[in-house]
């Protein structure tokens, strides 16, 4: 490969004093001084959250207002920083709405001081019950406050549309299906 030696243009005297460059710089900064501001006034103005944003992990209800989580603990297993802690529980047979689901979380804690917002819990969830939604601001005065418990997770998560209604279908099959 041929080596092309490029002559560096010698600096003129003015350039060597730096003064024109300094003046140019001052001009640029002065332009910015009077230019319109580009920042958001955060608590009053909120940024628009893009689709697929990974915010605080939350638990969601199905459109019928039933909890979707069956406490399979896959999220707890996959969670890289071990932020999720679930205590599984049995749904008693006398609960008309949910008895057929059999299992649900007795307690569901996500330690937001450990959470790294990786979204693996959402990816692994077989029931589509945990979602990283657009909540991005978590704060608290104590460590205990930074642990989201089940009721808080449902409050943050709200209700999301459901494509399957898996457990409703299960119940319908139980009622109309080919039982003996």
């Amino acid at each position: 490969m041929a080596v092309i030696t490029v002559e560096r243009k010698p600096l003129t005297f003015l350039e060597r004093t730096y003064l024109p460059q300094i003046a140019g710089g001052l001009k640029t900064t002065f332009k910015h001084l009077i230019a319109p501001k580009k920042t958001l006034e955060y608590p009053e103005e909120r940024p628009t959250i893009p689709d697929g944003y990974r915010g605080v992990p939350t638990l969601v209800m199905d459109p019928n207002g039933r909890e979707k989580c069956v406490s399979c603990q896959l999220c707890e297993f996959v969670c890289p920083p071990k932020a999720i802690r679930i205590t599984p529980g049995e749904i008693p047979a006398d609960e008309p709405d949910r008895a057929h689901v059999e299992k649900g979380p007795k307690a569901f804690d996500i330690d937001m001081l450990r959470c790294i917002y990786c979204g693996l819990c959402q990816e692994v969830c077989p029931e589509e019950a945990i979602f990283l939604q657009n909540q991005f601001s978590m704060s608290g005065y104590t460590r205990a406050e930074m642990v989201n418990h089940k009721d808080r997770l449902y409050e943050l998560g709200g209700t999301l549309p459901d494509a399957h209604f898996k457990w409703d279908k299960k119940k319908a099959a139980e009622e109309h299906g080919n039982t003996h």
Partner: protein
Amino acid sequence: MFDFYFEIPLVLRLFIQGLAVIMVIFPIAGACSMAERKVAAWIQDRPGPNRAIVPWVAWIPFLGKFLQRLGVFHVMADGGKMLFKEDSLPGHVNKFYFILAPIVAMIPALTTVVAVPFGAYFDAAGKVIPLGLAPLDVGMLAVFAVSSLGVYSMILAGWASNSKYPFLGSVRASAQLISYELSMTLAVLPVFLWVNAPGTPGTMGFGAVVEFQSQPGFLGGMWFGFLMPVSAFIFLVALFAETNRQPFDTVESEADLVGSFHTEYGAFKWGLFFVAEYSHMIVGSGVFMLLFGGGWNPLPWVSLATAVGWLGHILPFAHAPLFVGLLSISIFMGKVLAMIFFFMWVRWTLPRFRYDQVMKIGWQKMLPLSIANLLFYAIAIALIQK
């Protein structure tokens, strides 16, 4: 109508005047810290601090909101924080000198103010009386002498902190301040050469310099900044270096020295260093304006006397000493504040020099330039005044 003022004892009068100056300098230094944050924010396309507000000011309809957006109450908030936060004293420091250092920093900063006239008025005979705490004949020398003491505070702080970065910072500080003091002094000499014509009683006072810039005629009304641009330039650059402002703030360069000589300081003691730095800037800007910027004269070729003469046609009380005094002070302070804005503007424009570059500029560029400048003006002035 203010004759009674001159009848109170001199000591009391000077005390009141001194207090007045301190009461002005301190808030301005505080306001400068706020202005620094606001200018920084604006240059970076941000709104800057705009949250703090005193509740009863918030009730004022538009003004309250405006003041809040301007961030003026952050000065109070900052000051309050500085006063009330824990004043920690590290275990490994030399306690006496550690506490002494910020005090030593404040002394030269406030003492130099004594020699700087802030304005002027005309006595009954039409003679210009500079408004300063001490109308010293050796004004310039006094400022140089006292302000260079400021370096001792940095050396004390760096040494007493008993840790690496403060020590390195203080060593840099002393070297840098000595390097630029030379060219600064040499740059000022032509001004006084010109002012003190052979045969006249010599003076190093600022009053005489401003008076010289107020003379009628083309050369007389022209400020020294135009007559001696190179001197003004060297003085300005040296001033940046002397006050440790960007691009010469190698002393405080947080990237390589953490916080330099005030690494170990916090709370009010740190605040004193901070105020001292701004006081230095104010005094330095004042000196620059007095020497090269026409002092309290509103415009080149328009002296204060001329301006007052014009105003006399409109305002009946224009010749009153009080009005003239306030007018001159306003003009002068306006110029000083413009200078301080310039300091900040440069800060957010130029990156910091490396320490070796600072030394190189100081010794290899500024010093020869100032010597050449001195020689040139010595010969020129000798020829003109022959």
